[in-house]
């Protein structure tokens, strides 16, 4: 490890991992103290995470240390932080993950300024953000960095329980079930790391390679939570605050994609010894199909959104199973569109949930007549997860389906039918939202909320019409990951 030695500098130094983690933890502590002043804490958190996202995206690791004259400190971008034998460092492959995580958190904080997602949302999210940043910056340790990730994901899922439940007197199935995949898989990864160490001593041992491949394949598939381990996604979407659901789902799945990339890069023999692609394809087909079927019958807006996201996630799992490096570009493209669609839907859904008193059917009926922009945002975002034309997800789904169909057209046909199920579910929801208004006491939507929903719709429509807007960032991210 070519780690920068801070002792060579005369002035006090701060390594970048320490700055990021320490700063986020400190901010979490402060915001927790002032958590009742939600407007203030979310604003501050949004500004800081937004600035961090921009700064990290434009960070040049080869540049000289950054002098902080105000604090009389020097930030060393390549500096290391070592604790418990684990070494953290900001490396090029971590930057896109860090920047994306910060950007997602920033957007979530901005949306939370208007509609509260719970007093503890900001501090706990900052802690989670620090945890995911730690995962991205982890470079080495007594256990290989990718193989310790599931254990850390268990801890992060445990912390996420609090903001998913958010003190609501609702079912706790979703937060509870979100724990299960990571808990089930981390022992497999630990045992695999032990065998991987043995494999380093005898790299041609086929038995060791088989064991490592089997353990990691099973672990990856379970971590992806396909059907029948999928229930957390729909349950969380039904009961948890929508913006929290969106943020935690995307952060977890981003970390998971990063983990898979690192595992497949570190152990390239896995696809050769174990039919990983076959397993991922089957898991993806089942997930996409069940997501579509369940969405067609879902009546709860949150659950419908969750099943639509499950369907989209199934397609993404399928793309992971297609051999070849070029598919990672499609995977990242689809994930970016997925993030946009979920974000747009979350904007609308949070406003609808707020106005309809947690999706009370009486208040939900005809709410689109009083909240047209937010209802439209929810519908467009949800349809984007199904790849509906003129929505953000259309191009991603189209490219994904073409890629899948090039291997087996029947699988693509199954996904198409499942997408139709999602569309049916949202059409029924549109009839409810824009049907006869029952609660005439319902107020018109807030102008700021309508503006946010309009921005979400605008972004979705822009990406639907010009998907090449994402080409540059995705290629940069892919280039950074491959370093």
């Amino acid at each position, binding site marked *: 490890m070519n780690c920068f030695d801070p002792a060579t500098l005369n002035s006090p130094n701060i390594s970048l991992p320490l700055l990021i983690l320490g700063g986020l933890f400190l901010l979490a502590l402060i915001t927790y103290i002032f958590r009742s002043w939600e407007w203030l804490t979310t604003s501050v958190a949004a500004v800081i995470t937004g600035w961090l996202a921009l700064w990290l995206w434009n960070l040049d690791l080869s540049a000289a240390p950054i002098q902080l004259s105000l604090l009389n400190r020097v930030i060393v971008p390549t500096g290391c932080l070592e604790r*418990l*034998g*684990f070494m953290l460092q900001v490396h090029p492959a971590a930057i896109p993950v860090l920047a994306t995580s910060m950007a997602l958190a920033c957007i979530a904080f901005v949306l939370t300024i208007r509609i509260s997602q719970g007093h503890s949302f900001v501090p706990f999210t900052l802690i989670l953000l620090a945890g995911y940043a730690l995962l991205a910056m982890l470079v080495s*340790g*007594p*256990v290989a960095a990718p193989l*310790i990730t599931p*254990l*850390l994901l*268990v*801890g992060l899922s*445990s*912390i996420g*329980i*609090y903001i998913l*439940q958010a*003190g*609501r*007197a*609702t*079912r*706790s*199935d979703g*937060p*509870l079930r979100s*724990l*299960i995949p990571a*808990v*089930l898989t*981390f*022992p497999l990864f*630990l*045992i695999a*790391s*032990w*065998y991987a160490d043995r494999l380093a001593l005898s790299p041609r041992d086929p038995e060791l390679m088989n064991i490592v491949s089997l353990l990691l394949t099973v672990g990856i598939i379970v971590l992806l939570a396909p059907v029948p381990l999928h229930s957390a996604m729909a349950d969380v979407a039904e009961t948890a605050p929508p913006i929290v659901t969106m943020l935690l789902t995307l952060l977890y799945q981003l970390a998971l994609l990063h983990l898979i990339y690192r595992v497949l890069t570190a152990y390239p023999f896995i696809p050769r010894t174990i039919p990983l692609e076959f397993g991922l394809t089957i898991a993806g087909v089942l997930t996409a199909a069940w997501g579509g079927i369940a969405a067609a019958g879902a009546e709860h807006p949150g659950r419908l959104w969750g099943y639509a996201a499950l369907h989209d996630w199934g397609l993404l799992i399928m793309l992971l199973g297609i051999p070849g490096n070029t598919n990672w570009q499609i995977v990242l493209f689809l994930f970016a569109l997925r993030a946009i669609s979920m974000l747009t839907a979350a904007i609308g859904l949070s406003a609808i949930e707020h106005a309809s008193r947690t999706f009370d059917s009486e208040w939900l009926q005809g709410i689109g007549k009083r909240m047209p922009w937010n209802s439209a945002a929810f519908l467009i975002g949800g349809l984007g997860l199904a790849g509906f034309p003129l929505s953000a997800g259309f191009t991603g789904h189209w490219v994904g389906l073409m890629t899948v169909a090039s291997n087996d057209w029947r699988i693509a046909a199954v996904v198409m039918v499942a997408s139709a199920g999602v569309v049916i579910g949202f059409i029924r929801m549109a009839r409810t939202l824009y049907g006869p208004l029952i609660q005439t006491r319902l107020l018109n939507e807030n102008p700021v909320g309508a503006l946010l929903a309009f921005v979400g719709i605008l972004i979705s429509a822009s990406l639907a019409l010009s998907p090449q807007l994402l080409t540059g960032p995705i290629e940069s991210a892919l280039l950074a990951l491959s370093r």
Partner: protein
Amino acid sequence: MIVQVCIIALCTLILAISIAQAPRSPTISQSGNWIMRLLMLILVYTALRLFDFNFSLPFPNAIEASDALRMTVFFIWISICALLTLGLSNSPLFTGVALLLWCVPAHVFATLLLPESGVSVLIGIVELLIALGCSYLILTESLSIKQRPIVSTDITFPVEGRRMLTDRSMVPIGEMTTMDIPTVPLTAEARQAMTGVTLPQTAPRGTILSDTNLTDEPLRINRAQAAQSRAAQSGAKQSQKNQSQINQMQANLSPSDSSQSHPRRETLTPGTPTQANPTQADPTQADPTQNNQKWVRSGSPLTRTNLKAAQKPLTDSLSSRQVNQSLPDQSLPNQLAEELQEPTQPTPNLFGTSTHLDKDYINSKAEPQQKSKKEKTGLSRLFNRRQKDETDLPKDR
């Protein structure tokens, strides 16, 4: 190893504290009954014995092969138990226990295979986080149990929850603190005139306080018991003290003739003009009855707080069973007699036991150490019954 035991003990303590703090309520996610669980364990054990998995776990060379084999079997057994618990249950408690069980072999492996690596510390931290998260969900589950939808195909046997959810009068104890709805105001004079006796000072903890049996039922039974005792005591030998009390009660409730059947019973249907009480047809003169009817019929729930508040003036003024010697409103005992004829609807509580009080049951529950059965006043029987009902219920922890 001691550290691991301490961590698991701490996790268990965390879960136990949450269970202790959460009000006892039947969870909707029951993982079957004990017989079902036992059968499942027997099935799994038989499967383990019948099938040779030929599965080996990695162990360091320092551990002997026989010990490694035993540990392998033990860990597989623990893991299967954890998976069974996960599969059969959906409650935070069982899921938390299952996840912790699943972590135990991993913790041991991390200690054995990766000594002094820090992984063992991380697993310990993660176990604590899991326990904390599940304990938090245990607390929130107790608040949300009434709002859960019933899933007919749920494998977790939602029998208790279904029974509770189908009856709106079944309110979990934990929700009582959130239902602090003011009851219809009661004045000490009104109740004294109605009952002539005191109520218990406080409602014991754990009492299920539903709408009817707290606001309406006690008062109905009080008056019913009073009227019933008049009829029962007419020809019996009584002690001087009890006779005095009963006479006072009779004077209070039915000044006309306590030894006969009540002539006004069938004439005092609320809101109906009657021969015996023609003034009731006059709205201007029927206010006491209407007011009485209002608070007797009210279905507002009475919480512990409100019950105490309502009882306090009564206990202050009627602590020694003093009967108000002033002439009571004539409509009150008549109304009381009317309600004696009307059978009260049984009100199931949370655990399905009825709080309906019938005459036979009340007569059979008289206090032997103070009075004979025939000497019982209605209220004492009522209290005995209420205490019996309350002792039947699990106490709020």
